[in-house]
């Protein structure tokens, strides 16, 4: 039996495909009788889908550093 706290961690790991098979089975059983975690899992999945859909981009740290240097030179 696992606690809700553990279940939520597994749920988060699942979003990044890092949960082991054993964890996933434990999580599945937990979801059967825990409404709260089931709801959380549903929302969590939705967030993952949204993030994928938005196709987010970020600048790398080096590029940011370069920008900072340029700003300082010009200010």
């Amino acid at each position, binding site marked *: 039996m696992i606690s809700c706290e553990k279940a939520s*961690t597994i749920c988060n790991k699942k*979003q990044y495909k890092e949960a082991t098979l054993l964890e996933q089975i434990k999580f599945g059983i937990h979801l059967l009788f825990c409404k709260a975690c089931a709801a959380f899992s549903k929302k*969590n999945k939705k967030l993952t889908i*949204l993030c994928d859909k*938005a196709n987010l*981009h*970020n*600048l790398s740290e080096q590029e940011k550093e370069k*920008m900072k240097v340029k*700003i300082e030179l010009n200010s």
Partner: protein
Amino acid sequence: MTENSLNPASWVDKYADYLFNYAVVRVSDAEIAKDLVQETFLAALKSAKNYQGAASERTWLIAILKRKVIDYYRKINSKKGKAEVRINYSSQSDSAGDWLEENVADPFSTLENDQIENAELGQAIQECISKLPKKQSAVFVMKTIRGLSTEDICNELGINPSNLWVMVHRARTNLMGCLNENWFKL
């Protein structure tokens, strides 16, 4: 409300990703988008004395970036003819002589909206990320957007995995709440 003021030293940390995302969906090229963001910062510095504090820093920067994006499209379309849209009969032999109506976009299709919606969604998510506490956003960005492995992030930030998952959990719950308010209830 307090008077808005400019703080160029913190621009990159606070707004670079937000501006970059804004640019990248509009010019669909990461390199060009990066240059535009850079130009925006420089232009902002130059005209900093004109900033009156009426809008927030971010709104002001976005306004400059918007002009930069427009300028970019003007530049690549500098020859007048390039900007014209020409519709010709299809030259392929099997559809030659078909009417123009068949080339017009389907008015009942909603597929075209998807891209616009996704761009706005990206904006909303980025905004929510920028509201997170610094540590949480760092972990979330590394994990979700840059797709780094758990091990790499732990090494870089000097934390242990269970610590990382707690941070991810908090970031995700915050984001859910934020998106619930800013995205689903619009």
